[in-house]
């Protein structure tokens, strides 16, 4: 840890400080968007396409508009100035985007796409009016899968497109064709991973108030990226960014990726607030969330692995289809899948080929794991197949292929999503493997497994290892100010959804400044308070904001010491900060409290001069720009039991080893891993978003879409390893997704292990009971 304290008190960083956020949330005083006192706000309901692909010939709002209590009903015809493209967040030179308007103009491309906005005195009246809107659809051919998207002569998801390909990207390292041809052994398989949703417990929400007198637009948006939203709105509305304030409320009920995208509703609601000069809020309900919030995951992989007699991986070739949905919100997920594929292994020859497709289903984008779980599933399933083929233990094949601990920085041979060479900064993958194996007696388990089989019980163990790129740039920032009350205010652009920023960044600032923890306040997610930011996603905030906070605090600490030195008439080197004051190290009775400092140098005394060179305006801002992503890593060893008569899979035990570099608050880090693990179990066993062949979503409630509850989960046995990142002064890496990423692969491996006597092949996720029985050949 590279954080020298400015005083001798015990560092808070590295300790499990409990959260300040808790009290208000435990006592029902949370400040989620729909909890805010917006009683005078009108409410919006959205009329959404009920057809997956259609020409919209007309939209008749006359009955809706006439309903008492309705302030207005708006369609594209009323909002021509908003008919601008909402571009993808991550692009590629070969990307063929489809224009995405905030509202349907004349062609609806997925069930759930916004067609009209009703604004009324209450949500129930708005929904009554929405029922009265009549849409005249002319149904068009529907593309309801990537296979259908690629089928020759099939329908197109968009009328103005030649085909349904969004982008084709191929990356190669070494000589994969030659290596496949000459490899002593080659195994292949096809894997399918199904669509799923984020399902934060709070859905999306947008509220806006326009102040006509000043021309200021305030937008409350339950978003992971308020600055991105503001930037988009400024462009779309033709306003300077300073006239728009986007606030992610103090409390946002979960994000996980879907709230980091930019949606039509975020454009429509504030615009209508300006148009009507009335404040408006839109609170997404769960049905809307099911059909129109961004989803993720659907991929089909056809993979080949070439290896030698010792199980050394010589070549990996993967060709995969990715479902973008009706529009490209960004290429994050499939490009991350590509670069995640080789994982922690030395693989000299790689061919990774993506075809990303448009379909007439809700658009997809990042969701906790963001394309990595799929890649890890493919790689880790094949490693197990290699082991099975050669009669080696799966852990042994891994050991023989892991990148050694002294090989960092390690160049994989592929390009990362930002176009730079994929380079792992630090890690110790053999250490993770050893750590996990030390916590389970595999020999004893194998004996138990054999005995259990005789009694008709099928136990299995599965291992999966992963590497995770975190801490993406371009930057995050922090302002740190001594306030007029002598407190320290840390302002972050990043917006949290439960990660504990108000606690962990106060720890960091307290340590970096040397002040009492209780004197530090943290606020976040408001574009008015700090002008630049990127957002909370991709496990990037710790690695970027923590160094920024640290840097700003170090600078402010120097200013505070200088200020105190000038007040006390001594040299700055003789001053240290302790508690609530800057004190003379040799005689702590001589001190300038933070309150005195702020009165002199921030508040100032009216008309009184201060010495030239005085550090007035005690506030510092710092941005951290990472050179590249920092790589976390993890291992999951899952022990399960399969009921071979019903296909039900029960988790018995999970060991999760995790390396996110320096740990700032172990309580919070553990919480992220536990929470991520639950998502991983959902992906592995439960969550599947079904659409029929007409593109109609079939699973639109929690009765049909299964989120894991407490009885479906175990508490993972966690262990941590810390290989600090050399890419930032704190050595931190991201942690938010590590529990998710290896989990589906570990469970899939465990199920195939359990069912090995039957030769069952596990290739499709989620592993629902019917799929397991299907793999056993018991059912069709």
């Amino acid at each position, binding site marked *: 840890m590279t954080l020298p304290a400015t005083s001798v008190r015990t560092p808070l960083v590295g300790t499990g400080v409990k959260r300040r956020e808790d009290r208000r949330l435990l006592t029902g005083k949370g400040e989620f968007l729909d909890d805010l006192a917006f009683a005078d706000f009108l409410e919006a309901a959205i009329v959404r396409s009920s057809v997956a692909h259609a020409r919209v010939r007309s939209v008749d709002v006359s009955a809706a508009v006439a309903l008492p209590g309705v302030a207005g009903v708006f369609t594209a015809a009323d909002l021509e100035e908003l008919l601008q493209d909402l571009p993808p967040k991550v692009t590629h030179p070969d990307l063929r985007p489809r224009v995405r308007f905030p509202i349907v103009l004349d062609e609806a491309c997925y069930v759930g796409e916004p067609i009209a906005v009703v604004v009324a005195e209450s949500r129930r009246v708005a929904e009554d009016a929405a029922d009265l809107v009549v849409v005249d659809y002319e149904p068009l051919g529907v593309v309801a899968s990537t296979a259908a998207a690629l089928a020759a002569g099939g329908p197109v998801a968009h009328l103005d497109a030649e085909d349904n390909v969004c982008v084709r990207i191929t990356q190669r390292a070494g000589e994969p064709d030659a290596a496949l041809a000459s490899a002593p052994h080659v195994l292949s398989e096809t894997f399918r991973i199904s669509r799923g949703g984020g399902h934060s417990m*709070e859905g999306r929400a947008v509220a806006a108030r326009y102040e006509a007198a000043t021309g200021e637009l305030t937008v409350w948006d339950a978003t992971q990226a308020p600055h991105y939203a503001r930037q988009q709105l400024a462009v779309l509305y033709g306003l300077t960014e300073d006239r728009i304030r986007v606030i992610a409320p103090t409390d946002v009920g979960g994000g996980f990726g879907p709230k980091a995208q930019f949606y039509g509703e975020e454009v429509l609601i504030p615009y209508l607030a300006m148009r009507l000069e009335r404040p408006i809020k839109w609170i997404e309900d769960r049905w809307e969330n099911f059909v129109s919030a961004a989803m993720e995951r659907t991929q089909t992989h056809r993979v080949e692995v070439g290896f030698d007699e010792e199980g050394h991986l010589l070549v990996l070739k993967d060709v995969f289809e990715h479902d973008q949905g009706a529009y490209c919100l960004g290429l994050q997920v499939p490009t991350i899948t590509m670069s995640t594929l080789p994982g922690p292994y030395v693989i000299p020859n790689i061919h990774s080929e993506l075809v990303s497709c448009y379909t007439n289903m809700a658009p997809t984008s990042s969701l906790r794991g963001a394309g990595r779980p799929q890649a890890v599933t493919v790689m880790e399933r094949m490693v197990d197949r290699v082991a099975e083929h050669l009669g080696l233990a799966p852990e042994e094949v891994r050991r023989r292929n892991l990148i050694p601990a002294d090989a960092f920085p390690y160049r994989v041979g592929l390009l990362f999503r930002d176009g730079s060479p994929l380079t792992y900064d630090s890690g110790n993958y053999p250490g993770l493997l050893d750590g996990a194996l030390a916590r389970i007696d595999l020999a004893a388990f194998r004996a138990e497994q054999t005995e259990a089989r005789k009694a008709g019980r099928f136990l299995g163990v599965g291992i999966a290892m992963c590497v995770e790129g975190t801490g993406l740039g371009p930057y995050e920032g922090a302002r740190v100010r001594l306030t007029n009350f002598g407190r320290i205010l840390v302002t972050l652009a990043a917006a949290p959804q439960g990660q504990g920023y108000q606690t962990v960044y106060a720890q960091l600032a307290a340590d970096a400044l040397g002040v009492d923890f209780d004197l530090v306040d943290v606020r976040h997610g408001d574009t008015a308070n700090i002008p630049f930011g990127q957002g909370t996603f991709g496990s990037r905030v710790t690695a970027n904001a923590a160094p920024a906070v640290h840097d700003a605090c170090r600078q402010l600490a120097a200013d505070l010491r200088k200020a105190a030195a000038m007040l006390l008439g001594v040299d700055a080197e003789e001053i240290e900060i302790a508690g609530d004051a800057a004190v003379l190290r040799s005689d702590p009775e001589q001190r300038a409290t933070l309150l005195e400092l702020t009165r002199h140098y921030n508040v100032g005394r009216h008309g009184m001069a201060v010495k030239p060179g005085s550090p007035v305006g005690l506030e510092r801002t710092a941005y951290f720009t990472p050179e590249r992503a920092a790589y976390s890593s993890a291992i999951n060893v899952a022990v399960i039991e399969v009921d071979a008569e019903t296909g039900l899979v029960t988790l018995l035990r999970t060991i999760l080893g995790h390396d996110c570099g320096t740990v700032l608050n172990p309580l919070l880090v553990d919480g992220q891993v536990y929470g991520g693990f639950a998502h991983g179990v959902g992906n592995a066993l439960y969550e599947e978003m079904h659409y029929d062949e007409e593109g109609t979503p079939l699973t639109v409630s929690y009765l049909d879409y299964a989120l894991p509850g407490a009885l479906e989960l175990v508490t*993972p046995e966690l262990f*941590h390893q810390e290989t600090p990142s050399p890419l930032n002064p704190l050595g931190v890496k991201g942690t938010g997704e590590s529990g998710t990423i290896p989990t589906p692969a570990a469970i899939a491996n465990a199920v195939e292990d359990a069912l090995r006597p039957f030769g069952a092949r596990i290739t499709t996720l989620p592993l629902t009971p019917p799929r397991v029985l299907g793999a056993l050949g018991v059912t069709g």
Partner: protein
Amino acid sequence: MAEEQELHALNLVVNGESQSALVEARVSLADFLRHRLGLTGTHLGCEQGSCGACTVIVDGQAVRSCLMLAVQAEGTDVETVESLAVDGQLSPLQQAFHEHHCLQCGFCTSGFLMSLTARLRHGPVLDEHEAREALSGNLCRCTGYAGMVRALLELSGAAAPAAEHR
């Protein structure tokens, strides 16, 4: 002004205080608590009764306030999350939630607290399985329930499961 909707007189006790109001029949108890009484601690996650974020206690039983019409609460005794802390003192359950990091975004928390408050009035949870059963009627998307299991076992004086952060 919306069309004249028939309003029903509603009298009930909420967190120990009598409340009287005129409400439309179709307004849920959840929306009544949140927007008429300003008790926004109760949240709406699904409006289908599945997620449990809206759970409150009515006449001593944990129920989904999204699946009760406000008018159906006539004459009942309703407890919401705002009633748990007394004079600023967190209840033992709230305190245990804090100690064991049982919340991250906090949106589901009030539902869990009310389900568990009702449950614990009937006695402690004896082991991990019982703890998970007590938790099974509420969904959390952030925490994986790990801290909540520990919190319940500690409150009940039972043995905790797997080791914490190493």
